[in-house]
């Protein structure tokens, strides 16, 4: 070894007279300077631009989702019994839990927005052209994976909103011909939505989809560095080539500034408008009107127009054609022309589809708003969410708990409670407060009301409901003292 000629950079030559210091020591062993050079000095044709920040912005939000997701998983339990309680615990009890859960939840929305912007920018710049087919396809797969993440993550809190939205979402899948029913069964882990559904969605959300995301983000970045940035669509590509700029410092500064902007937006949203959690999913609730998250609203509205035998066109054929058109874009659009003004058909179709989706979303909200009964029910659902958020955290009673056992043992054995139950059921209380006082979208749950209010106050409220109760539709019930005693004994037994 000692006889070999000295190379320009002998990595392991301890005899070399290279400068000393920690960074050199590390460099000799890791080659980090070369890596930084590779990363920072990438040539950008046409120079740094603000329109390039969306890709790195997506990467940044993805990182934020991973980190906040890991911390949420520290407290979350994926089971129909505990999921809702653990999210309520995160939001109402754990320090900064509401903040981080909101960052995670809003992060999903911001990611969808950035994806559309990133894709639109790539499309308008014609940056998918020139041996960049795989780069574009990897990007499309990432789009689908992010939508999958949003869909699976949405169910996990197991509140009314997420439960019913996912019930509808999985029902839509069953409309797919031939394999639809089977797909629904696989997704739900059974015919109905239950604890197996939540386990499956959890595994998809934290293991399967993130693994796929990791692979395709890696592929997307690798292919991007391999083909290099396309630069802006320009009439004179030679001039573009002549004026290249390194990624560092200007583009990195722009990317960092954008990341900072994203942090500020997310933090302000999460702090001032924390995401709410609704009451626990009650599958028996027949009043609840399910609505998906905003980014699924266009598809939701679209599907409304396709019912009956033609549904397959709306659910499969049209989205299928659009997907093939989008993913296959770099394969059939072989013209080298990149300027959007010279690609009227492509830009026209893209714009029409994008605008149609936006319009469908707006129509969906408008339709809900215009129908008074729907609007009223949606308002009630929102009020139920707010009411749940106002209540202090209720820990879950562990199995084998003394009072849980006592509550189970009581019931009809006590004649007073049995009488109260009969009064509750024969006076229409059940209609709004649900069987056993579990609560519905119409009225609050009465389980535990006996612990919150003393009997005389409870009796007074039943005889003379306050303004808020009246507004919610609670009538006054002038029961006799004897009946009232029985009713309150029954309410007390609801734990």
């Amino acid at each position: 070894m000692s006889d070999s000629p000295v190379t320009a950079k002998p990595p392991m030559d301890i005899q070399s007279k290279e400068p000393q210091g920690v960074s050199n020591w590390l460099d000799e062993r890791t080659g980090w300077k070369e890596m930084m050079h590779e990363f920072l000095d990438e040539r950008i044709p046409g120079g740094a631009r603000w329109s390039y920040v969306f890709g790195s912005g997506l990467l940044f939000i993805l990182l934020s989702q991973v980190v906040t997701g890991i911390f949420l998983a520290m407290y979350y339990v994926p089971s129909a019994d505990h999921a809702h309680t653990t999210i309520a615990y995160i939001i109402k009890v754990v320090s900064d839990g509401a903040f981080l859960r909101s960052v995670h939840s809003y992060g999903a929305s911001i990611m969808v927005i950035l994806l559309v912007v990133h894709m639109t920018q790539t499309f308008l710049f014609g940056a998918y052209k020139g041996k960049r087919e795989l780069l574009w396809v990897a990007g499309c797969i990432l789009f689908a994976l992010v939508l999958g993440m949003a869909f699976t993550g949405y169910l996990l809190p197991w509140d009314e909103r997420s439960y019913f939205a996912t019930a509808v979402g999985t029902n839509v899948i069953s409309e797919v011909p031939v394999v639809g029913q089977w797909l629904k069964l696989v997704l739900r882990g059974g015919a109905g939505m239950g604890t197996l559904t939540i386990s499956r969605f959890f595994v998809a959300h934290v293991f399967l989809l993130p693994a796929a995301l990791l692979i395709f983000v890696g592929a997307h970045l690798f292919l991007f560095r391999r083909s290099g940035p396309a630069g802006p669509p320009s009439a004179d590509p030679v001039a573009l080539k002549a004026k290249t700029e390194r990624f560092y410092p200007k583009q990195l500064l722009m990317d960092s500034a954008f990341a900072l902007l994203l942090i500020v937006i997310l933090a302000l949203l999460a702090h001032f408008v924390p995401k709410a959690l609704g009451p626990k999913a009650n599958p028996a609730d027949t009043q609840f009107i399910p609505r998906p998250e905003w980014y699924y609203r266009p598809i939701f509205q679209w599907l409304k127009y396709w019912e009956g035998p033609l549904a397959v066109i709306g659910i499969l054929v049209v989205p299928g054609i659009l997907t093939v058109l989008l993913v296959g874009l770099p394969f059939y659009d072989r013209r080298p022309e990149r300027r959007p003004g010279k690609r009227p058909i492509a830009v026209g179709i893209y714009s029409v589809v994008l605008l149609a989706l936006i319009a469908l979303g707006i129509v969906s909200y408008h339709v809900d708003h215009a129908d008074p009964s729907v609007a009223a029910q949606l308002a009630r659902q929102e009020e139920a969410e707010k009411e749940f958020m106002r209540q202090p955290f209720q820990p879950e009673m562990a199995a084998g708990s003394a009072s849980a056992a006592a509550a189970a043992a009581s019931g009809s054995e006590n004649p007073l409670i049995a009488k109260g139950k009969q009064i509750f059921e024969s006076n229409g209380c059940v209609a709004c407060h649900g069987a056993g006082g579990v609560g519905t979208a119409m009225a609050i749950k009465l389980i535990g009301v006996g612990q919150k209010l003393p009997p005389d106050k409870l009796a007074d409220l039943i005889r003379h409901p306050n303004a808020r109760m009246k507004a919610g539709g609670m009538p006054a019930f002038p029961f006799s003292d004897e009946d009232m005693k029985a009713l309150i004994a029954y309410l007390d037994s609801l734990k």
Partner: protein
Amino acid sequence: MENQDNQPTIPQPLVSEESLSPEERARRRFVGWLLGIVGAVVGVLLCIPLVRMALYPLFAKSGRAGWSDLGDANQYASLSTPERRVIQIQDVDGWRQTISEKVVYVTKGPNGKLRVLTAVCPHLGCEVAWDSSLNKFKCPCHGGTFAPDGKYLSGPPPRGMDTLPVDIQNGRLMVRYEYFRNLVPNKEVIG
């Protein structure tokens, strides 16, 4: 327009720092420091909620809801023999709570003050029963006996029955349930 632009850019030979002008090098260094410092500050700020969330259980109030209610203190004023009471204690374990029932005896100490005894025998932990015919406590397992105030009388137990911390709050007799080490001569709280 045949542009070569659509071809992937051929990786250009990497240019070393030395080939840059001195101004450019100074600019790069400045931006490096700027990004490093701002990045570090923002990074630390972002870590605050994460650390607070992760460490929450360490600072949360301890799991036991302190005092259990034994009812109006006056009802025990004319107490002549120990009275058996079942109290509920709440254990909060994160988002779960367990309510368990424990047996205690309300009695009077030698000075006439109210005293609450745990029913757990200091010998091997059986539930000690009050035997009114004998006017003493008797453990059903190994026959240890105790006086009405809990003092050791006879049998294998190493000490008398254990007293629990009591307090009168708003006229109500409150007790804090505790567990004690068995088989040792002196009372020793174990949580």
